[in-house]
């Protein structure tokens, strides 16, 4: 008997259930790409059969961090850059939870970059959505890790001397087993990619291009977009690491030249998730740690029985 009966519950799910009564309308600017992420999640979650209370949405800080204010699941709005360590530990404490982490490009690729690399490397079974608007939004438009070289802002008055970070390549190198890029301007693809990411058994990273009309590009600048799976111009095998790497590189090269490439870049369905690996080496119990505290039959070990080595 589980203490967490929202998990695995079979019933009809209305997408309106995901709209919180207390805060139904987001405060994002009109035309903001963040609406696209929220919408695709509200569509995807019922379609993959997830009820609001079996989902934990963990966010960082920034406009994107408000996601779980507007998505009525269990939510944890953490601190800048730290959504991933909070999220992956929740998954370890209760692997039955559907864990989705989200944050901006500054949050995930800048201040939280170390956590991103290590969470991807460990291949935790969770989804990570990065709202990539190539700018710092909530602090009013400073250059971010994905801003193009030469980008001018109040903190880079002469134009950024740095090349932008390559999020897809970085993710692949770090060890993510599902890597995709989608865009707010392409809601149908976004919904499908989010669904795949949730259903993927491993670390699924979605770089989500979310236009920031207030401080950076507006929606028109992400149009036209190209779906690399649907376009005849591109042909590569998403399960082939080498080919994926090449496609990612090209995608990152052309983004700031006006060609918006999106789609699935790397899908590895073979590698076991971190939970499976940890169970395999004997360092993770079969019964979720969180369940045990409610299990009346659980027999709790005590230190008294460990003392022989000290006598």
């Amino acid at each position, binding site marked *: 008997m589980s203490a*967490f009966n929202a998990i695995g*519950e079979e019933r009809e799910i209305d997408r309106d259930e995901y709209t919180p009564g207390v805060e139904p309308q987001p405060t994002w600017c009109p035309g903001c790409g963040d609406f696209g992420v929220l919408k695709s999640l509200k569509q995807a979650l019922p379609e993959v059969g997830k009820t609001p209370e079996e989902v934990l949405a963990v966010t960082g800080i920034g406009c994107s961090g408000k996601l779980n204010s507007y998505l009525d699941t269990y939510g944890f709005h953490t601190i800048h850059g730290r959504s991933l360590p909070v999220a*992956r*530990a*929740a998954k*370890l*404490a209760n692997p039955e939870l559907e864990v989705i982490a989200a944050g901006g490009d500054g949050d995930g690729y800048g201040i939280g970059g170390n956590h991103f690399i*290590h969470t991807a490397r460990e291949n935790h079974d969770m989804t990570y959505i990065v709202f990539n608007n190539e700018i710092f939004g909530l602090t009013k438009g400073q250059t971010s890790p994905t801003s193009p070289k030469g980008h001018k802002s109040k903190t880079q008055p002469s134009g950024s001397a740095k090349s932008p970070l390559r999020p897809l390549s970085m993710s692949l190198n770090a060890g993510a087993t599902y890597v995709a890029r989608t865009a707010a301007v392409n809601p149908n693809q976004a919904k499908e990619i989010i669904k795949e990411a949730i259903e993927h058994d491993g670390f699924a990273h979605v770089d989500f291009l979310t236009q920031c009309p207030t401080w950076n590009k507006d929606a028109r600048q992400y149009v036209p977009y190209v779906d690399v799976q649907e376009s005849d111009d591109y042909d590569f095998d998403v399960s082939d690491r080498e080919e994926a790497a090449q496609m990612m590189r090209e995608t990152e090269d052309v983004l700031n030249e006006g060609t918006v490439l999106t789609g699935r870049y790397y899908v590895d369905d073979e590698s076991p998730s971190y939970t499976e690996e940890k169970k395999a080496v004997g360092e993770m119990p079969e019964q979720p740690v969180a369940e045990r*505290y409610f299990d009346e039959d659980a027999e709790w070990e005590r230190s008294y029985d460990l003392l022989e080595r000290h006598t």
Partner: protein
Amino acid sequence: MTIHSKGFRHREPKIRIRLATWPLISMSDDELIWRVSGGSGDGIDSTSQNFAKALMRSGLDVFTHRHYPSRIRGGHTYVEIRAAADEVQSRGDGYNFLLALGDSFARNPQEEAYYGNEEIKPLSENLDELREGGVIVYDEGLLSEDDVADLDLEERAEENDWHVYPVDLRGLAKEHGREVMRNTAGVGITAGLLDMELEHIEDLMSGAMGGDILEANLEILHEAYEMVDEEFETTHDLRVPTGEHDTEQALLSGSNAIAYGAIDGGCRFIAGYPMTPWTDVFTILSQNFPDIGGVSEQVEDEIAAAALAVGASHAGAKAMSGSSGGGFALMSEPLGLAEMTETPLVLVESMRAGPSTGMPTKPEQGDLEFVLYTSQGDSSRVVFAPGTIEEAYEQTRLAFHIAWEYQIPTIIIYDQKLSGENKNVDVEFFDREPEPGLGTTLTEEELKEAAHDNSGKFERFGYEDNEKNVSKRSLPGQKGGRYLATGNEHSPVGHISEDPDNRVYQMTRRIEKLDSIREELDEEHDSNQTYFGDEDAEYGIITWGSSQGAVVEAVERLNDSGHSVKGISVSDMMPFAEAEVTEFLESVDEAMVVEMNATAQFRGLIQKELGRFGDKMTSLLKYNGNPFEPAEIVEGYEVNVADEDREPSAQVRIEPAAGD
């Protein structure tokens, strides 16, 4: 195999007037303080552990003290084991038996090199603290004749009535095939010189090794032991004390005790990043968790470590993390997040000498203010500072109880000293039921009755029914419990809110949890403070954390020698043990606060918390990297209180009372 005499072994014992190498000692004769010295990586630690256990099994109380450099191979290191029939609470003053094994990884001396001649240090560095009449055994197979001659050992031995026995331990070990066995040979010689039975040493060796290795070690142990009788002309009086225990004993370190307190408190999740000396707790739990259903995670940095503990706790595990000062600095943000989101959490902070990297393997109590106040905004956390192995266990258990009952981060602050020192404890002390409850966490059944907003969102931070200032929590995955946790100020269902009334309500409630906790600690638990000395005394000594043992012993000595002194060791740092410390200070005319830091942080805390007594309190401070010895505190008292017109001879500082 012959023992080459250096001459002074055969001299007649003489009565001499001691010179001022160690002027502070007043010690009992019925104790052994055995110091085994060598280089890092020479197996000093494991050799001493077994020897300490053998002494414990023979019926003695033991206490160990470790001194080591931040270096893997080479560098002067020693372990001291104090053993006596009655309870020993500190390392004592000086020591009376040196086994100098040599540093096999010593660097080569060079003219300009600051480290001098490392090879001789296991002998030379230890002479100043050796008591009059003490015994020296050194490995003449590793220490060269010329180097020893340079020390004027013979002359100093005459002056101090030391009894010196050079033995070629290395040669003896080589004869038996393995040079590393020189440690065993040294133990054999020690046992022989002290008239100590080999039974317990043999048992321990048999438990730890087998086959040819065991055989060779037993052989060399006996050969060395018998050599003392057959070939030595002994002149010393020191013998191993005898004692008896009423119940079975276990030899544990403070780190063991903290780890075991966590296990019995129901902790089954730990995340960490290695850092001396916190690594011990992390390691002990990581090694035990696979067998008891726990999860341990070594992660990319301490920000992640504490954030993982927050995430695991949020999802329903009793979780902890910890570090030493530098790593704990990185935990400031997740700590603040736990305060704001009211996520139960236990952190441990194992202090070492700072600032920055400081002295990584040396104890200090310099992180008190840091642990109390780090992270932005007003603090709402609990901080306990255990002073002994037993307190470390009790207070870690209590930390889990408080953290989950009150949904508040609870910190155990201790140090390198308590972390690494071993002491015997009654096995039955641990014979109690574990406490795996989740405190004020609701079940799904209870959630049905709990307050929700109109849209069905759980009022996790609601305004009603907050007994003891605690609002009940739910866990992700529970039916009917969804809410938002956020580091922003938030409304009853957890959504971001900057409404002034809500702000004041939530902030006040979080802070006032500390009053409720204080009440529970005062009314429902035995005091975490330890009292000692003469109840009617008009002079008090106040200390905290691991300095307790040396202070207890100093107070005993002062009372034995006709002074009237009482002492208190305080553990409740936040919420502060206000009533108890007030009562103590009111009962004395003057008090000396003893702590291992340079800025009198604990005395400052007392003044901040109580707002008075500034003119009653002086400080005795030590921050040279070594813990207090009882005699230094006795002397501090004499100089400070008896208004003696002299400076202390030890490397300590006396700070006058405010306004003096």
